[in-house]
């Protein structure tokens, strides 16, 4: 489902003395359907960077990333947009929304984007919000004023509301209590058994062991010069 080959990446900071920060060289790995792979490595090793490259949020210098056989490296923005609507979801650590839009609508949005009827999208959205224990009285409010844990759960609901064949999860359980963590782990398990390919970053080893089939240490992809 997700195939990463010979991937290379560096950042150039033009306004800080044109510093070149090498990140990856020869990154290779793949994720099959029904599999959950954890990215590991010390803070700053490039776990989130790699995830963002797969989502097309960061550009790649060289190599290939194929998501459901579609090449992401050098892809036209329209192809990336299409892939994000239909194939790949991303739950980031931050919630970015238009202010004033209700939580129900924020979560329903990925469904509306693929042309789902508003009434169905709302129902599905409410289903996930109650599963993730977001109190009903908050559904009509904008999530911008929610607590960190609540925002994270809204983000997760948004990532799971549509059945993306491939899913990227950046610390989905970081600020959750144990009860909600178990709900999220349940969602991941269910997605796996439905044949979704999942890549996750989990700092908590016990969480990682519980849902992940394999671990990929991204520090092995670090260029020699920087190591």
């Amino acid at each position: 489902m997700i195939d990463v080959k010979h991937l290379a990446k560096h950042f150039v900071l033009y306004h800080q003395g044109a510093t070149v920060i090498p990140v990856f060289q020869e990154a290779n790995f793949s994720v099959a359907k029904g599999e959950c792979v954890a990215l590991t490595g010390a803070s700053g090793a490039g776990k989130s960077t790699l995830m963002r490259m797969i989502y097309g949020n960061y550009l790649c210098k060289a190599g290939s990333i194929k998501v459901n056989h579609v090449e992401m490296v050098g892809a036209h923005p329209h192809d990336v947009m299409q892939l994000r609507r239909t194939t790949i979801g991303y739950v980031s650590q931050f919630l970015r929304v238009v202010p004033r839009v209700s939580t129900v609508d924020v979560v329903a949005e990925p469904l509306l984007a693929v042309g789902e009827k508003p009434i169905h999208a709302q129902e599905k959205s409410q289903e996930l919000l109650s599963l993730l224990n977001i109190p009903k009285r908050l559904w009509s409010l904008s999530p911008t004023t929610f607590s960190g844990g609540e925002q994270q759960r809204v983000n997760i609901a948004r990532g799971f509301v549509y059945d993306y064949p491939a899913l990227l999860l950046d610390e989905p359980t970081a600020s959750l209590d144990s009860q909600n963590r178990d709900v999220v782990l349940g969602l991941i398990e269910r997605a796996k058994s439905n044949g979704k390919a999942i890549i996750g970053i989990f700092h908590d080893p016990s969480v990682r062991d519980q849902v992940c089939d394999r671990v990929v240490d991204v520090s092995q992809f670090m260029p020699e010069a920087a190591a």
Partner: protein
Amino acid sequence: MTPLLSVYNLTKMYGHRVGCQDINLDLYPSEVLGIVGESGSGKSTLLNCLAGQLTPDRGRIQFKTRSGDVKDTLTLSEPEQLMLSRTDWAFVHQNPRDGLRMSVSAGGNVGERLMAVGSRHYGHIRTTAIDWLDRVEITADRIDDRPTSFSGGMQQRLQIARNLVTGPRLVFMDEPTGGLDVSVQARLLDLLRNLVRDMGLSAIIVTHDLAVVRLLADRLMVMKEGQAVESGLTDQVLDDPQHAYTQLLVSSVLQA
């Protein structure tokens, strides 16, 4: 899918100074393109050239009309161009006073556009006007008031209603949220997003506000000294900028 609008090597000079130079872009149906850059970077010049408000010195602009024909907008006859700007196109100005008739009632401002495309039935025009005022959150009891009695944010929403009432397919916006306070900005952003999704509208938005484009635009073009220095998916350009100028632009934003 074929582009709604294609622009080739568009150049506009002001004497020896460059307005915008060798701009190429494609806009697809239901897509929002953001154009960012500092003042004087040529973004408004470009927008005005695209919308037929300025005549470029070189280049070609092709637009796919409702009937599916691709037309060269720069070589259209004046009546054809006028018809295009009344039906398929809309232009939302930064200053609502430039896009509204200040001496005509709110309802009249909306109705006038309908009459320009042939509506004659007073009852229908008034009902449609009320419907549109409601969509932009202006209550029906203000329909006979003149825009001079409206706040800046209300004027801007009225301008949007006036522009969208004829169901355009392409909207040009010049700093649509500029000069509005943030609570009104948010309301306008929400409105614009829904219109894009529900009406299948395409839009080109010129702004210097990166937060606005992040929420509204699918794709982004960064301009500097009349040239397009970088373009791509909005979040990619903002999160992993490749050009020195874009990096400066992104890193200069104050965190609220």
